[in-house]
Every structure is written in C-alpha cells, then in structure tokens.
C-alpha cells in the first residue's frame, strides 16, 4: 500500500522552512484537522437539511425551498440564522443547569466521534487503535444528555421523550455493536483504516456488503434507531409527545438538538459507508487501473487524484445512504414503542448473534474470503 499524501509532514515541513521552530509548527498543525472536521460536519449538516427538505418535497410532489439562493440551497443557513436570533427561553420551573447542559451533552460526543471517520489513507483526524469502538462508546453518552434535558424541562412530554430515547438507544446499541463486531472479526482490527484496507483491492466486489448483507441491514436499522429517524422517531413523536425531550427548547438550545440529530445521521451514514461500502474505495480498483496504464503509484497527480476521489467517494456513499434514510422516512410508518423494543430485543439481537456466529464459522472455513 502506498503511503499516499502526508499532509501533516508537508505542513510542518513548510512551516519549519519558513523559520518556525518544530514545536510551534506542530502546535499549529494540531487544531487544524479538528477545526476542519467541525466545519465539515456543520457544512454536512447544512447539505443534509437541504437534501432532506428537497427530497421530502419531491417525494410528496412539492417543490420545497426555492427562494433562498438557487434551488433554495441557502434555506438551511436561513433556518440556522433564525434559530440563532430567537429568544433563548428557559422555562420557569425548569432546572437551568441541566437544561443547558443537556443539548451540549447530546452534540459534543457526536462531533467528537467524527475523528475516526476516514476520507482517505491519511485523511482523518487520528487513526485510533480503538477506532470504531470509540464511536460506539461515544454514541452511548447521548442518552444521558437526552435524559437530562427530558428531566430538567419539568414537562411530562419531555420526560417521557427522554426516557423513550434512552430506552431506544440502549436497546439498539447492542445489535449495532454486534454487527460491528462481525466486521471487526473479519478485518482483525477496530481501526477504521484497517477495515477499509481489508475491503480494498477488488473494487466493488470486495466491499463488506457482499460478505455481511445481514449485518448491513441490522446496522442500518440500528443506526436509524440511534439517530431517531422516522420509523423510530418515538422520542419526538409529535402526535403523542409534542416534540419529546425538545418540547421546552427554543432558539440556540433547540438548534443544538437539531444539528446533533443531523450530524448523527451523516456520521452514521459515513460509518456505514466505511464499514460496508468500502469507505474511500472507488468501485473500480484504482491502483490496478494505474498498473495497467503503467502509471507509478507514487506519481504526484495520481496521488492527488486518488485522494480527491477518495473524499468524493466517501461523501457520495454517505449521502446516498442519507437519501435512502429520507426515502425511508416517507415510506415506513412509525412503529409503536412495544414494537420498537420487540424489534430490537427479539429480532435484531438474535439475528445479529447468529450473524456473528456465522461470520466466525465462515472465517474459520474460508480464511481467504473472510479475513485470515
């Protein structure tokens, strides 16, 4: 495998050449990927909001946002600005500390989890050993924030919504983790980079979705439930609970929930594309193509092309999944709370356990195809 582009090395090299000491150059580099990631996450949210509104409009034979910018692309920005300028209300009987802390606790872990999403061989914030496990761990903090905001709102709908959200994410964490475990078993590593590398080499045929179709479905259902997307949006079911734990929130605090939900959706889609759809891999193996055309792997233009194609492919796959989620939103009716827990505990959990056992057996039987 080629090392690809070493952005960190070249950045520090450039700064040292300009006369900065090594330490300061490194310190200047440190926040850069993080800031870029946060900006990327927020822009991703804006795109997702626009996409959701446009796709929903198309599915319902409407036009959708149209006047703010060409094709309404500035509509999410307008929405965000509106929320920024709205009055920040803390209800009279609410607990002000928990009320403020709740939304932050929902958003921060989700943004933190972005550090493990790779967009290319070297294009991620950090290649952690625990990789995908960190994402699972961080997403389990969110229920605390939901419970906190549900409790502190001092509203029965909020409390019920918070309790439902917590119950839902606890029940769906387990099938999610088991589906990830099957993938991890095949690639012998929790690192997202290794998981993508293990799928590379055969183009679209090498992707994990062919080896783990059941796992893919389980993961996607569980991810939708974790994001509280429509078939599983019981915590904020507007017909029963007004808006669940968000009922009492307004202005920026509400915006945090809103942004958190969409960042989580994009993040889940990115993780699915990393785990099952080959991450930054092009459907046709690029290095083989380069080999046929007699282009060296270390050619600069090829490396730039691979890197940009990698980013485009990852984002494209993720947004394809977001599109699927929006389509599902207008197709599948909401489940009841008992059906939701039934689906999680009595269907997804056994099926994912069987999937895990099957993967282990297949790995022992065909070490070539299922990772040695």
């Amino acid at each position: 495998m080629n090392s690809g582009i070493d952005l960190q090395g070249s950045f520090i090299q450039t700064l040292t050449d300009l006369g900065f000491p090594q330490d300061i150059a490194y310190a200047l580099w440190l926040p850069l990927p993080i800031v870029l990631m946060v900006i990327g996450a927020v822009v991703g949210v804006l795109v997702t909001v626009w996409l959701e509104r446009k796709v929903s409009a198309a599915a319902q034979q409407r036009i959708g946002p149209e006047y703010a910018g060409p094709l309404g692309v500035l509509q999410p920005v307008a929405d965000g600005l509106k929320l920024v300028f709205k009055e920040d209300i803390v209800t009279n009987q609410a607990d002000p500390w928990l009320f403020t802390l709740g939304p932050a606790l929902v958003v921060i872990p989700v943004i933190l989890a972005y550090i493990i999403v790779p967009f290319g061989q070297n294009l991620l914030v950090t290649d952690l050993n625990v990789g995908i496990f960190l994402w699972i761990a961080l997403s389990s903090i969110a229920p605390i924030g939901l419970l906190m905001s549900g409790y502190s709102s001092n509203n029965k709908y909020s409390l019920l919504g918070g309790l439902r959200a917590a119950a839902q994410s606890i029940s769906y964490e387990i099938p999610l983790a088991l589906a990830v475990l099957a993938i991890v078993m095949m690639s012998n590593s929790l690192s997202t980079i290794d998981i993508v590398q293990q799928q590379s080499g055969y183009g679209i045929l090498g992707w994990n979705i062919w080896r783990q179709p059941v796992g893919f479905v389980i993961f996607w259902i569980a991810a939708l439930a974790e994001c509280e997307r429509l078939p599983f949006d019981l915590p904020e079911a507007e017909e029963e609970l007004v808006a669940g734990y968000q009922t009492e929130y307004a202005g920026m605090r509400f915006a945090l929930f809103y942004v958190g939900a969409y960042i989580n959706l994009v993040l889940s889609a990115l993780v699915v594309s990393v785990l099952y759809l080959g991450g930054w891999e092009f459907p046709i193996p690029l290095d083989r193509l380069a080999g046929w055309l007699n282009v060296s792997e270390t050619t600069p233009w090829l490396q730039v092309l691979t890197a940009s194609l990698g980013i485009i492919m990852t984002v494209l796959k993720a947004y394809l999944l977001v599109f699927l989620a929006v389509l599902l939103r207008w197709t599948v009716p909401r489940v009841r709370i008992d059906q939701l827990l039934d689906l999680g505990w009595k269907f997804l959990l056994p099926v994912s356990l069987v999937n895990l056992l099957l993967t282990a057996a297949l790995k022992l039987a065909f070490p070539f195809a299922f990772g040695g």
Partner: protein
Amino acid sequence: MFKFLQQVGDYAKGTVEAAKYIGQGLSVTFDHMQRRPITVQYPYEKLIPSERYRGRIHYEFDKCIACEVCVRVCPINLPIVDWEMVKVGKKKTKKLNHYSIDFGVCIFCGNCVEYCPTNCLSMTEEYELATYDRHELNYDNVALGRLPYSVNQDPMVTPLREFAYLPKGVVEPHDLPKGSQRAGQRPEDIAAKAPVKTKKSAKAES
C-alpha cells in the same frame, strides 16, 4: 424440536415478507419523486376558481326587498336584515336600513343565494378573507356590495387553470397556448347541438 423449527421458519418467512413490503413501499416513494410537483406557488400564482365556486357572498342593496328568506333558509339564521315599516303616503312599506353577514360564522352553503327571490345575493370567487380581527369578517351591506378583483386581471398574479379546465391530455397548467379550450364540450356547444324542442316533439315524447 420440530415445532420450534417450524416457528423459526414461519418467523423467517414473515421477515422476508415484511422486507418485501418495505421494498415495495420504497419503490412507490421513489416513483413519486419523478412526478411533477402539483404546487401552486400561491401569492405569485393562483388557481382560477371554477364558475360554481362558492366564495364570499355579494349583495345588492337596491334589489333587496327585506323578505328575510335568506335568514329563514340559513342553517344558523346568520344574515341580519335591519328594516322598519314606514309610511310612504298612505302605503306602509318596508324600509331596509342595514344588511350584514358575518363570514366568520358563515359556512358558504349557498342556501341564501339559492332562495333569494330577487337574486340580490350571489356568490363571488373571492376566498382570501383573512383578517387580523374576527369581527372584521362581519361584512355590512357596503362591504358585501364590493366586487372581488379577478385573478385574471391581476398583473402580479399568474392565473392557473384548475385540472378540469385543462385541454385533453394536458396536466401542466403553466404556459398553455392561447385559446386552448378545456376537454369536452362547452355549455354553448351543447346548447347549439341540441334539437330544438317544439311543442309537437315534446308531446310525442310524452
């Protein structure tokens, strides 16, 4: 043991069935995405109300004979007819002072228009009755006498025909060619084609 396997098989079958139905649903949703939006972009585009449209009621004060039929046929006796008996010379006549209908309460059923003996009540095509105060909806005889502004004449508005008034095979109300007529015969065509009914033919029929 065998029963357990049967149960598992049934469950798997049900799962596959459910997945199939979800797939069908998704394909339906996807199919809808390619369909033309039916949006009428309201303040800029408006539908032309059909000719039987029951909008705000128009009232001609001078034609009214204060018979109060409209009040009697109204489901809630809504129109208010304020008249008094006056002597004009030797004759006692009704003198109409005020007439009003509260459109905040009116259900636009059209009974008053139907039964008015002098046709002083009629339906208009006006439907934009929004006000800031519900009492502003209580129209007196002056307000009732105003004619609505037709959608066709408003330079700010693109008038759009309703689906039933589009030519045959056309579903897009935008940019219709000029003079295009709706599907089917127009009332005057039907009247022109109909055989002239003489007294003789009517007798023969009966």
